[in-house]
């Protein structure tokens, strides 16, 4: 169970090593492409600025992901069980995916200000779609024979949902959550680039404008680590539930 995680860490370490070696071999200036060790030094030097900004971005990404999971589960269930809801919501959801969410970010800033609220909304809008699709599919894939058994025993719609359809959709929900967990950090940064007073996205803008390439890369490393941590957390939850037999292996 742990080996995929270890393999991921090893692959990242190998990539960083290669990057370090290439910078040294090609004698690149840090202002062109800093080596990972340069970025790490910059991270340590600027940690008093970077870490609070990381905390802000992490909060936006996590709250956005959590909101997307709750809203996505609710909408996914609704689409799966209520035909009128499906007819009404499906076209809207498809259209919503053709609009670049980031185009809405300036509007959200106008409405809600420079705080974390518009960022959470942008992150939610980006992360919710995979969850909706996964949950709707998962609920519909519940075993038809078991559904017959419950209906034959006189179970209400709500009871059937609680006893079989929702538990059956948990593996799909976790698959959707894994996809979404990879979208939320880029989403939060993109929202910060549009207008913010805090967060790593705002620092990226400032450092880039000032030509502080090394510190810019320190931000990028932190963002990559944050994204990886969120993905690993969702994957670990998935693995733990599968190991205990609470959800079926896929």
């Amino acid at each position: 169970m742990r080996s995929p995680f270890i393999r991921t860490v090893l692959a990242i370490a190998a990539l960083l090593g290669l990057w370090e070696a290439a910078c040294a071999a090609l004698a690149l200036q840090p202002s062109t492409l800093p080596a990972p060790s340069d970025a790490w030094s910059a991270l340590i030097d600027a940690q008093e600025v970077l870490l609070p900004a990381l905390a802000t971005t992490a909060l936006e990404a996590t709250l956005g992901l959590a909101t997307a999971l709750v809203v996505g589960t609710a909408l996914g269930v609704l689409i799966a069980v209520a035909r009128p809801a499906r007819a009404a919501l499906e076209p809207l959801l498809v259209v919503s995916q053709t609009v670049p969410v980031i185009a809405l970010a300036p509007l959200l800033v106008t409405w809600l200000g420079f705080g974390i609220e518009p960022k959470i909304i942008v992150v939610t809008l980006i992360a919710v779609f995979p969850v909706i699709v996964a949950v709707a599919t998962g609920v519909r894939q519940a075993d038809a024979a078991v559904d017959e058994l419950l209906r034959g025993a006189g179970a209400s719609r709500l009871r059937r949902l609680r006893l079989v359809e929702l538990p059956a959709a948990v593996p799909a929900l976790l698959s959707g959550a894994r996809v979404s967990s990879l979208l939320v950090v880029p989403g939060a940064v993109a929202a910060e680039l549009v207008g913010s007073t805090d967060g790593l996205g705002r620092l990226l803008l400032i450092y880039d404008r000032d030509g502080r390439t090394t510190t810019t890369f320190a931000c990028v490393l932190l963002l990559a680590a944050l994204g990886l941590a969120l993905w690993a957390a969702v994957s670990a939850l998935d693995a733990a539930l599968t190991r205990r037999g609470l959800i079926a292996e896929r």
Partner: protein
Amino acid sequence: MTSVLRTEGLTVLGADGAPIIESVDLTLRRGEVLAILGVNGSGKTTLVRALAGLARPSSGAIVLEDGTDPAARRHAAYLPQLSRPVAWRDATGNAALPLEASGLDRRTARRVARQALLASDPALLRRGGRRGATLSGGERQRLLLTGVLALARPIILLDEPLSAVDAVERRAAQDRLRGFASTGRSVVLVTHEPTEAARVADRILVLAGRPGQVAAERLPPPPDRRDAEFQGLLADDLLSLLAGAR
């Protein structure tokens, strides 16, 4: 014997609008095992789903002698044909599923399921904590059968309940069905096995044709007065009915 359920000219249409069963008249009596025998595609499952209140008749009627509406689904304990186990529940939880569906809370349903397993299939109770994903198809059938039979309902509708169960447990389960009938409950047993029908059923209906109709009825002497030789002859007779009805 008094009847508990009867159908009058029961016709059920499929999704394509063509009838799957047509003009089926049957009577289920109190305390009997009624076997419904038929080849694949003869409408056995559709008939038993209609009796369970799950398939709406396009014409004809299902009449419960106590006057209740079959669509309310409080009259029968129904076990559909099953495929996969419910992975996230343990063995006891699988047996408790029909009880929870009928309205019992989780804890009560588990307690009743455990008692039913203890009384009827204690070998399974020893596997009570195992997850559904690790149970075999036959174990799963036995668990849900036990759970369905634990529903205190006068009519028991079973759709090929023993198809995946091994020979030893199948015989034990057949004897259990006879036991339920002797306490006054009525069992409809859908099967495609003539030997099973010849061993346990009080009466046997053969469903045949497309759409399925009652092609023959057999009313042999009571099961406890049929010896092995008679059972063999009856099974041969039923097999030839099935073969002729194809």
